């Protein structure tokens, strides 16, 4: 029941939130709920057996018998940390958006909880249709979050976001249907949408022929996830969505939603279509490398801080993609770790940008300058997060990036040689931005604020400290003791990497372990 509770509690919260009578306590309530959710997920983590690659805490019951669709939840090393990331970020987001969301507060928090439920659902669902349902469902609240609470071009951005993602996932739906049609071969006559049955499928693959089922299915899935990740050249929705989204929206988007794409690759694409994945790995590694360099270069010349960070996401996600598709234990472990890192550090960056935006109502880099003298605490936090983002050792970013690069070197030194340029470019665009925003003489905005007492700039408030400190602690904790986090996933990743061609998640049938009663 643990996993169901994780998914459905937020929905319950959302409903309660929607009908909560008092306007001024909505935020407190939401924060309390999200903390409950986080504690629940900690309980889940405590029961999780890190030494096993098996699916744990499995819940399976028939949903749509006719199609073999089941309500099938499970968690293993690949998803456990992503679940934790989701539950960890939501309270922070709520706290971080305390002041910035000032209209339709109830609606916002309801949407946020539904989004959380959908995201957790996509990480926990082990049934293709169930996964698809959560996957699509997650679009809706995000669509509203961007569209209602977003910036001036929010409608354009939110439509672009929705339609891009939707267009990709439609193909995936078709591929799922096709796969379900194949399952009777392995289940003894019954159609099934369970991932365990999918894994047993032996889908024909011929290397030279593009029109083999496995290749087509592979691309149908891969494109859906690629748009979500997003990988070059399908990334253009991301900067728009990020720039227009309100701070919490950006945080969720960067922190968790993009991970749904990479998670999809790891959970569905690579194990399901191993030959095709291997055969086309070069393609994805190539776009990953292009993404890294391209994202970094374009980020460098952005005039808008948020857009800069958005493009940096493209760059970072390029790393993750490479890590996944080099398909060795370093790369995959690194990628999985980098997903968490990116969630934390980019999430923190967006929160910080949100805080400064609340103060100055501008994100134009050229209007800033000299902020460090005015907001020292803020600056320190920002620089720490920047260091995490550019993967300075002892911060979390380094561990993931290093492992990915190591994996890519094992795959091909040339790939590593190109990917490593991201290390330099990453530092270049982030530090240049930091320099222009925080250092140098005081910029237009700062001097204006100094003359205008109504808009005087205040350093971080206690609430904002409370938002940032957990993130900063995580940055160092994950950087110094990566094993505390990676140990949860190693068994699963090893299992995946070693059984590339013949992958099936074992399912722990030991009920004591699943903790069902």
């Amino acid at each position, binding site marked *: 029941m643990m996993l169901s509770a994780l998914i459905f509690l937020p929905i319950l919260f959302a409903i309660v939130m929607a009908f909560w009578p008092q306007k001024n306590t909505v935020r407190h309530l939401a924060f309390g709920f999200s903390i409950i959710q986080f504690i629940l997920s900690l309980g889940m983590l405590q029961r999780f057996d890190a030494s096993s690659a098996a699916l744990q805490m499995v819940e399976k019951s028939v949903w749509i018998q006719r199609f073999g669709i089941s309500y099938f939840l499970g968690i293993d090393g690949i998803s456990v940390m992503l679940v934790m990331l989701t539950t960890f970020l939501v309270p922070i987001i709520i706290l971080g958006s305390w002041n910035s969301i000032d209209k339709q507060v109830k609606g916002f928090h309801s949407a946020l909880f539904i989004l959380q439920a959908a995201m957790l659902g996509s990480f926990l669902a082990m049934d293709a249709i169930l996964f698809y349902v959560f996957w699509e469902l997650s679009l809706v609240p995000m669509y509203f979050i961007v569209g209602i609470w977003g910036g001036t071009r929010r409608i354009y951005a939110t439509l*672009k976001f929705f339609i891009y993602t939707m267009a990709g996932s439609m193909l995936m739906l078709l591929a799922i249907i096709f796969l379900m049609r194949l399952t009777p071969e392995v289940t003894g006559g019954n159609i099934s949408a369970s991932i365990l049955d999918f894994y047993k499928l032996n889908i024909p693959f011929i290397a030279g022929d593009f029109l083999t089922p496995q290749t087509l299915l592979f691309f149908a899935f891969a494109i859906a996830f690629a748009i979500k990740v997003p990988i070059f*050249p399908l*990334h*253009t929705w991301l*900067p728009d969505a990020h720039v227009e989204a309100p701070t919490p929206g950006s945080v969720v988007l960067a922190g968790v939603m993009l991970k749904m794409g990479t998670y999809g690759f790891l959970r569905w694409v690579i194990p399901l279509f191993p030959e095709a994945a291997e055969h086309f790995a070069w393609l994805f590694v190539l776009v990953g490398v292009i993404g890294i360099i*391209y994202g970094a*270069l*374009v980020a*460098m*010349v*952005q005039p808008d801080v948020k857009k800069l960070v958005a493009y940096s996401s493209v760059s970072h996600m390029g790393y993750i993609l490479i890590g996944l598709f080099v398909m060795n*234990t*370093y790369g995959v*472990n*690194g990628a999985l770790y980098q997903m968490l890192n990116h969630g934390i550090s980019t999430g923190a960056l967006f929160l910080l940008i949100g805080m400064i935006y609340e103060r100055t109502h501008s994100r134009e880099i050229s209007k800033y*300058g*000299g902020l*460090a*003298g005015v907001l*020292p605490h803020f600056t*320190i936090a920002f*620089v720490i997060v920047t*260091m995490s983002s550019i993967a*300075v*050792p*002892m911060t979390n970013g*380094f*561990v993931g990036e*290093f*492992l990915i*690069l*190591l994996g890519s*070197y*094992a795959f091909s*030194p040339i790939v*590593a*040689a190109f990917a*490593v*340029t991201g*290390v*330099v470019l990453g*530092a*270049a665009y982030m*530090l*240049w931005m*930091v*320099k222009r925003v*925080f*250092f*140098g*003489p*005081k910029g237009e905005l700062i001097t204006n604020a100094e003359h205008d007492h109504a808009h005087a700039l205040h350093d971080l408030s206690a609430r904002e400290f409370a938002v940032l400190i957990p993130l900063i602690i995580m940055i160092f904790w994950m950087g*110094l*003791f*990566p*094993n505390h986090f*990676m140990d949860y996933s*190693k068994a699963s990743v*090893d299992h995946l990497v070693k059984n590339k061609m013949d992958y099936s998640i074992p399912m722990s049938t030991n009920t004591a372990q699943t903790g069902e009663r």
Partner: protein
Amino acid sequence: MNQQALIAILLLSPVVGFFLNGLRFRSKNYILAGTIATLAVVISFVCSVLLFLDLVGMPPEARRITANFFEWIAVDKFKVNAGFVVDQISSIMILIITGVGALIHLFSIGYMHHDKGVTKYFAYLNLFIFNMLILVLGDSLLTMFVGWEGVGLCSYLLIGFWFNDSAKAAAGMKAFITNRVGDAAFIIGMFILFMTFGTLNIHELNALAPTALEASWLGAVTLGTLMLFIGATGKSAQIPLYVWLPDAMAGPTPVSALIHAATMVTAGVYMIVRLNPLFISAPNTMMVVAIIGAATAVLAATIGLTQHDIKKVLAYSTVSQLGYMFLAVGVGAFGAGMFHLMTHAFFKALMFLGSGSVIHAMHEEQDIRKMGGLRKYLPITHATFFLGWLAIIGIPPFAGFFSKDEILWKAYSSSAGHILLWAAGVIGAALTAFYMTRLMALTFWGKSRVDKNVHPHESPISMTIPLIILGILSVIGGWVGIPHVISQYLGEVPNFWEHWLAPVIRILPLAPAEHGADHEALEWTLMSVSVGVAAISAISAYIMYTKKEGSADRVAKAFGPVYQLVNKKYLVDEAYFKGLINPLIRGSKNLWYYVDVNIIDKATYKVTDIVRGGGSFVKSLQTGNMQQYAMYIGVGVVVALSFVLMR
């Protein structure tokens, strides 16, 4: 006390200092901040000394103290511990770092007392010490890399310490990014080594290093070490990545002394020395290292001739001296490299602090053309600076003489050496002597050109004590490694240095041709040539800048465009901007504008337009005329029937 605990205290003491100061970074109480920070480093220094003594007490082959705190990253075969090792090489380094570091901290109390961010400053300094210790103590390349990047970060923070000045902030950024270029190569180097040897542990790597020389350029060891060396060129400011160091002088002067002269910039040399068995196996890399080192030594020295900023001169001097060190390690003289590293740490730290003292006295004036005759205002500073000057230009028996002489001798005599390398070294020495004398002359000697509003005064005692200590070290620092040719006349003073390092350093055999009997004579000859050249050069500079005013300008005019070119640092920065950075930014803008906006988005819009166009077309078919609709029905029927009939 247990040695592991000692290492822990050694490492953690600056961290504690960092937090104590960092958490109250807005405090202006410089005494408190300085005391905390200095004490932290002093504690580390004490630990270092204790550890050193422990090492001394061990048998030479077993001089190795390790401390494994926890497993840092462990994925499959890739296992890296937060492990630290104190051995012959790193023990010297920690002594230098904590010792010189403590002095510089002390100096900073006086130097920074008027600064608003003094507490933050000391926090950064402590953080730097911590990272530097990790760098030198790390038992694996990756652990070393942690410190490697960490010191880069601190350097970034300290260079840009006065962030309100855009140029200073830019200098910090430049330092970091340039270092990152090297770091990227360093990472690749680590991969190559890990893939070849299956470990990044330095001890294991050294043990696994092939004894046979690797001739191929594309051999794993050669490539790996080359990549590491590129990393070193970044950190240690060698061609082509030296450009950040002169700009790094934007930071407070003690920082320049600590980071950009004594400790951090020598990390590259230290790294190569640590990995000497590996580098020795790759003669091609060694050759590259030596050539780059020699070239840097000369190039930076020429630029040093023409600079007017006291710190810039010292900065180029540092680059040049680092070139010497690389020359040393490049020709296989690892001991000499380390030796010069140490002596350089003493006298260059001294000179930077001295310059700090001067700047402090001159109210932040750094242009040597506006100084002169400061000897009478700043006697202690002058005296200590004078010792440093003697050391750097290589006058026996000052520290620099021994180390530089050792390098030049090895450059000539080692099997990896070459007469051209030696010649470059000598030219470098001559140039060094010239510009350092010029610096002395323009600053301390001759007539005063000081602005009337400025009243120079000697620095407080907290600043002069470190100067004095370093001055003494600059004199005696070289005596631990007196070469055999000289020491045989001094009553066989043992060469402590070589004995100490011998177990951890593989020595290249001397070139076979040099095994003759004239070995000693040759060494004497070369030694006198270099000293003589340096002395002549120094004297001519002295005359030029104190006795014959204006002659310098005439010389400059005589060289015309060459002078301009050198004065403008060979336009390397400009070339980097023109050739690399600006095109990159322009290209990125185009990439954004053309690829993102105009190709990808446009393509998306095109699809939308096509769909919308289809919509408009359908809309235009929907005329509202019902006979038109009936016609569609008729056409539909006809088409369907025709098609059905044609089966």
